[in-house]
């Protein structure tokens, strides 16, 4: 197992896609903070726009409606007050922009050995080739960590450049529970994509499915499930969003309650465990083509 992890880490650090995606993670941080800066400037110049944003923010927090696509909304209070670095990072990560990159990486990295046939060189010589799924996930976990680290650093650097003293870093320890929960959710996504790629032998399928989930195209499906369960057990008050990766990703922000953060972490970890176990089983049982 350790040998395979070493192999996958070596492959990861010698793959162009790894570095391209890390560059994209940094660029995404710069881009999203720049967009927030444009938004803040627009609100400063147009008080009516700021007013509308306040209303939208209040409606969003009370409404149960969910939006499709990727959104990172700026806080109207940032116009005049300090901009909290943790809050800024939380909004950007909750938007799913970083998760999209995690999904693309997991799909490309996870299916490369199937695609070019390298797996044929090693799969037969392993006592349990299911560990191939575990080693690929481990390498992906390292990459997701690096992506989050880079995204965080570049968010803070760009914020510092745009807003200077108004951009307040605050206590890093306060960010750790939120970052930890989001890391596990992103790992859950990586594991899910690895599973889909393993089952379908198609990086395109895994990538597309992952992107659609992050963009909340899963909402109609969840809705149907919620309604179905509500009809069977009306007293249950079941909401599948609470148990899915995308649902928790949007909730587990820096200001989320410990209960929400804990649930998000558990959901992320559960997805990792189940998806990797299934992927390992699939790799073990399937013939290598």
């Amino acid at each position: 197992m350790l040998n395979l992890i070493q192999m996958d880490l070596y492959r990861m650090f010698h793959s162009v896609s790894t570095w391209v995606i890390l560059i994209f993670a940094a660029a995404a941080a710069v881009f999203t903070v720049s967009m927030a800066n444009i938004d803040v400037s627009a609100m400063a110049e147009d008080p009516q726009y700021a007013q509308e944003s306040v209303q939208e923010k209040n409606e969003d927090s009370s409404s149960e409606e969910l939006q499709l696509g990727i959104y990172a909304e700026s806080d109207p209070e940032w116009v005049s007050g300090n901009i909290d670095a943790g809050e800024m990072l939380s909004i950007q990560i909750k938007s799913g922009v970083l998760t999209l990159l995690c999904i693309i990486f997991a799909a490309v990295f996870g299916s490369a050995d199937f695609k070019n046939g390298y797996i044929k060189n090693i799969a037969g010589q392993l006592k349990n080739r299911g560990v191939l799924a575990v080693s690929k996930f481990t390498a992906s976990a390292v990459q997701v960590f690096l992506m989050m680290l880079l995204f965080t650093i570049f968010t803070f650097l760009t914020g510092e450049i745009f807003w200077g003293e108004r951009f307040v870093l605050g206590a890093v320890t306060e960010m750790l529970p939120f970052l930890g929960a989001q890391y596990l959710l992103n790992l859950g996504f990586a594991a899910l994509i690895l599973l889909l790629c393993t089952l379908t032998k198609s990086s395109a399928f895994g990538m597309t499915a992952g992107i659609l989930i992050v963009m909340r195209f899963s909402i109609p499906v969840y809705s149907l499930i919620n309604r179905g369960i509500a009809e069977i057990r009306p007293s249950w008050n079941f909401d599948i969003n609470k148990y899915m990766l995308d649902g928790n990703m949007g909730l587990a922000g820096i200001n989320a309650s410990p209960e929400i953060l804990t649930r998000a972490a558990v959901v992320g970890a559960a997805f990792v465990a189940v998806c990797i176990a299934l992927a390992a089983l699939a790799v073990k049982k399937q013939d290598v083509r």
Partner: protein
Amino acid sequence: MEYLLNTNGLTKQYGRHKAVKSVNIHIRQGDIYGLIGRNGAGKTTLLKMISGLAAPTQGDFTLFGKSGKEAYRYLSRVGTLIESPGIYPNMSASDNLKLKCLAMGVRRKDEVSELLDIVGLSGAGRKKVKNFSMGMKQRLGIALALVGSPDLVVLDEPINGLDPQGIAEVRDTLARLNRERNITLIISSHILEELSKIATHYGIIHDGVLLQELTREELLERCSERIELKTDDTRKACTVLDGIGITQYKVVDPDTIHIFERLNDSGEITFALAQNKIRTLGITVKNEALEDYYLNLTGGAVNA
């Protein structure tokens, strides 16, 4: 007899189609086993099963004397090159080899450079594989199969896409590995002439069925120039042949004798038999090429 590898009724079924039907092959340590068959004959499927890449639908194999699940533990001693070489095109040849070394736990520093040297790629180790010719990729595939010094190397169509010089180089490399490192080789091909230059044993597979297993000597004997004598009493005929000084002959069935010397003396042989009141049912000089032998066995043109 102790075999390094033998299969016991190995069968692979995809849906209703049986790609490999109850195949029993027998390979000894140090053999170069040539698996001959047309495209789609079941060669790759058979090789995938004995490499642990595909699970048999029925049957099993014995490897290094171990059978069943225990045999799978010894697959780490089996290097493989199945179909086209599986390589990362954006990585160098050295990196591709390094990956497999890491996966197999091979820590020897010189392993990669030695393997590149063996397959004649020592000057191209740092070059990205996407810029390699087909022949270079094949050679890298062979080098990958050799990582960790396996005892058995399974090569599926290793000379595919190679030019004549490349074929000769690969053939020499494989022969050297067999001779110097005592590596047992299983090589599949549909290019019979090439296989015949290196293999010591042959298995002929057709439509998923192993038609015949034979040694190089047996094959050469069957393909060599000979007189095929058909007679009603082979025992007496042998005495007559001995009497006229013919010693290189073989009784192949109750009516047929193959004579491998004095090929121009058919008349003298028939005369001697007639003198001893033995009927000659037929006498012909045969010279069957390897390819003809294969075609006669499988009953059709090679789909190469």
